[in-house]
């Protein structure tokens, strides 16, 4: 069962929605506390985030560094723009692959949904050059090997 939806809005945006069992307070905290962000914002299996700077205040810095333990790494920098505790986060981010990608403005909303949360994230659709660079960034080729390693660990 996939709880994730991913759609476009016009020509410029991607809108992602996802339900969580926990209330908005918890989901918001997991998005703004670096100790928690570090545990889940990792992309494909096998990657970790050795550096996680997440200053959840207006103009606060964001810096996430990922590594796959096999020499590949890249990072993302950004700034928080607006924060409405437990409800809404607006931030801007850019990837360093290592060349920097255009700024991506991301708005994330958390709404109560029964005892859980309905999250809506609206982000900018990257241009074709950025997409190509992201595809060739090495995030994907490492996936299969990581899965194999994971199976061995289990």
């Amino acid at each position, binding site marked *: 069962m*996939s*709880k*994730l939806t*991913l*759609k*476009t*809005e*016009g*020509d*410029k945006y*991607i*809108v*992602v929605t*996802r339900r*969580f*069992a*926990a209330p908005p307070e*918890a*989901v918001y*905290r*997991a998005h703004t506390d670096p100790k*928690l962000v570090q*545990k*889940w*914002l*990792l*992309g*494909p*299996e096998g990657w970790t985030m050795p550096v996680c700077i997440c200053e959840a205040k207006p103009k606060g810095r964001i810096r996430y560094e990922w590594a796959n333990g096999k020499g590949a790494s890249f990072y993302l920098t950004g700034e928080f723009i607006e924060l409405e505790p437990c409800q809404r986060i607006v931030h801007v981010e850019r990837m360093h692959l290592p060349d920097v990608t255009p700024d991506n403005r991301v708005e994330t909303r958390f709404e109560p949904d029964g005892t859980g949360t309905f999250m809506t994230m609206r982000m900018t*659709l990257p*241009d*074709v050059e950025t*997409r*190509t660079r*992201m*595809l060739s960034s090495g*995030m*994907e080729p490492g996936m299969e090997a990581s899965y194999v390693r994971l199976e061995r660990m289990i």
Partner: protein
Amino acid sequence: MLDLDTTFSALSDPTRRAILGRLALGEQTVMELAQPFDISQPAISKHLRVLESAGLIARRVEGAKRPCRLIEGGVEAIDQWLAMLRRALASNYDRLDEVLADMKPPKGRKKR
């Protein structure tokens, strides 16, 4: 709203889909492309810019003309990128489910 699993917003417009259909038959100029449509050349040019920035078509300069052609695999490349994004987000949010469960372990369950 369009589902990006199968398509892309540049393809949401019927005129742009028709332009791609005609370009599938071979390279054409803006004038040739505008002929079957009841819209102006500048309007066609605008659609072509959208398709070009989406990586679906390419244009070359030939004197005063700028013939257009389809980019092989352009649509597939977008699907590939979106599939990558979807996989990355899906595994992130599955992990977030676990992080959230650990923040408030239900009664009778040991904290991991």
